[in-house]
């Protein structure tokens, strides 16, 4: 598949905008996707990620802006003229053609020679050689997915677009296909642009993740970088979970900005503080927090951020234990503790002290409100659980 002479080029989106009537689906998006990278556009449904993808594919005309591959402007080209191929959500395999003809479709339309050899090699790459003469409906979901990838990749596009490619698969198969897709991408070296709402999927596969919200990119970077250092409340909540505490800037101590919140002073590294005003929302990931029985408070290292609370819920999930802890001002905080030691967990009602290193703390601008990016269903579930629990103790 890989021919060394082929020049792979960056994909540039410039001020790309798409509106449907009054609704702006994609808002002045400027973005460079480096050649050969696995790029994930992550966002909730309706955030504009699929519209962006369709504009790159040529299936949707941008209202404004341009799309370039290297220095070629492809904005005005129609879908069938673009060196871009798509793996569609739920695959869109041609039901009347067998697997072989599905994969050969693009080559035949372009009048390429040696269709047979290329199709056979491609089917081998996705391990579907023996299925060549079957119809798509005779294949399982995972196999159909691989056909869809093969059908697109065989054309050696400059950019391969994947629209929620694993959405229709069950969890186990999805994990397997994540690894598979990543392997294929490394093999062929094509730029993959992957649209998904599944943060785990995005983080597992992509070199670069762009979190999209309301037609704009909130933050973009390596998965670990975005996870460890979210720059907005939306990203902090959408990508994993975060404890966010509203506070006010009070001063500086060395490299740290000090924030006063509900009578506590919390330290945030100044280079991880993304709010310029006085209002700062202090954030920390649940697994970065250590939970201690209140009597052990003396063991907390010097300089750590700390707060006291009371355990309201304990759920054992195998790998870790998830605690809900009520802070003195009534906010519920989440703590994940690795189950390294068996036994001796905190119990509901225990007074505890939470502490974490300032270097794991981030400071955000509170403009979006504390719940931006929270999955509404999950939040609802947590609230219901908390109410049930409260009722239970009341009786």
């Amino acid at each position, binding site marked *: 598949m890989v021919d060394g002479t082929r020049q792979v080029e960056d994909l540039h989106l410039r001020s790309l905008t798409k509106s449907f009537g009054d609704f702006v689906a994609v808002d002045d998006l400027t973005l460079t996707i480096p050649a050969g990278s696995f790029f994930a556009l992550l966002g909730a449904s309706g955030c504009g990620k699929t519209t962006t993808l369709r504009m790159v594919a040529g299936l949707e005309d941008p209202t404004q802006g341009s799309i370039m591959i290297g220095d070629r402007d492809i904005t005005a080209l129609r879908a*069938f003229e673009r060196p*871009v191929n798509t793996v569609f959500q739920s695959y869109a395999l041609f039901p009347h053609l067998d697997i072989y003809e599905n994969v050969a479709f693009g080559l035949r339309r372009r009048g390429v020679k040696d269709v047979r050899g290329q199709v056979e090699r491609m089917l081998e790459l996705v391990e579907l050689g023996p299925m060549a003469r079957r119809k798509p409906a005779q294949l399982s*979901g995972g196999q159909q997915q691989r056909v869809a990838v093969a059908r697109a990749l065989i054309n050696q596009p400059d950019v391969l677009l994947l629209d929620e490619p694993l959405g229709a698969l069950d969890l186990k198969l999805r994990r397997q296909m994540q690894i598979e897709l990543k392997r294929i991408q490394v093999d062929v070296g094509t730029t993959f642009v992957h649209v998904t709402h599944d943060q785990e999927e995005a983080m597992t596969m992509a070199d670069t993740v762009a979190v999209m919200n309301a037609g704009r990119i909130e933050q973009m970077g390596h998965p670990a970088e975005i996870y460890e250092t979210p720059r907005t409340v939306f990203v902090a909540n959408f990508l994993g979970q975060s404890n966010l505490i509203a506070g006010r800037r009070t001063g500086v101590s060395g490299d740290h900005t000090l924030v006063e919140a509900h009578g506590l002073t919390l330290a945030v590294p100044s280079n991880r503080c993304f709010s310029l005003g006085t209002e700062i929302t202090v954030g920390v990931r649940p697994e970065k927090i250590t939970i201690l029985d209140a009597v052990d408070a003396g063991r907390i290292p010097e300089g750590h951020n700390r707060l006291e609370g009371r355990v309201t819920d304990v759920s054992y999930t195998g790998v870790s234990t998830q605690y809900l802890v009520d802070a003195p001002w009534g906010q519920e905080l989440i703590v994940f503790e690795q189950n390294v030691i068996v036994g001796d967990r905190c119990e509901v009602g225990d007074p505890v002290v939470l502490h974490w290193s300032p270097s794991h703390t981030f400071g955000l601008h509170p403009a979006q409100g504390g719940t931006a990016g929270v999955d509404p269903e999950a939040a609802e579930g947590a609230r219901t659980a908390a109410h049930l629990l409260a009722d239970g103790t009341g009786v």
Partner: protein
Amino acid sequence: MRWLRRNLVGIVAIAVLVYLFIPIAVIMVLSFNKPAGKYNLKFDEFSLEAWANLCGVPGVCSSFVTSIQIGIVSTIVATLLGTMIAFALVRYRFRGRSTTNLLIFLPMATPEVVMGASLLALFLNLRFPLGQITVIIAHIMFIISFVVVTVKARLQGMDPRLEEAARDLYANPRAVFRYVTFPLVLPGILGAALLGFSLSFDDFIISFFNAGTLVTFPIYIWGAAQRGIPVQVNALATIVFLVALVIVLTAQYVNHRKRRALDNPTPIAADAALPRS
């Protein structure tokens, strides 16, 4: 009592089937009859005469051929026009689209007597000579509605992403139609054509008004009924029924094979048994 309750559905089903098939069986049986009198109503004597001498009665075969000809011509024209109308209605937004959608149903809703009579009035006013042409025009008119409705349903049920996928895979608009849209809509078009042909073949009322001196098969039978229907009519009717049966069974067989292939996925692939979404 208990037995009855358990088997009631089966009994009713058989009763309905008997009700549906007795008339056909009677026609078939009587095609082997040699009636004693002038009416072929009661089985008198077994004979293969009608089968051996299908065209033995003047007019039977010529009317049969006339009806087949009319059916073929009007089906082809109506299917072509109807398919194009269906595409226009589903794929394009134009002025008068919803009106057209509504008007297309009118021929189906209008009583045949009314349609036949008004067409006759039209042809007479235009001084258009009645005959095969007028019957074909009338048939095309009412078949189109059925074709449009059938093909439209098929088009609307088609996943728009299939055509997008084709465009994405370097198919220009013409290639998209030729390699994706048309093959996918074809079963709908064929179904519409079959339906159209059978509607045309057995139409009596509209044909009768507009035939002039032309004799179609149904008109022949109507005429013959006055003085005793020849046994050959039963034989021809049996042939028509058998041909229809073969078509239906073939379609069933093809479907069945497709489904069996779906139910037995390959044992080679480990994930073959996983459900498809």
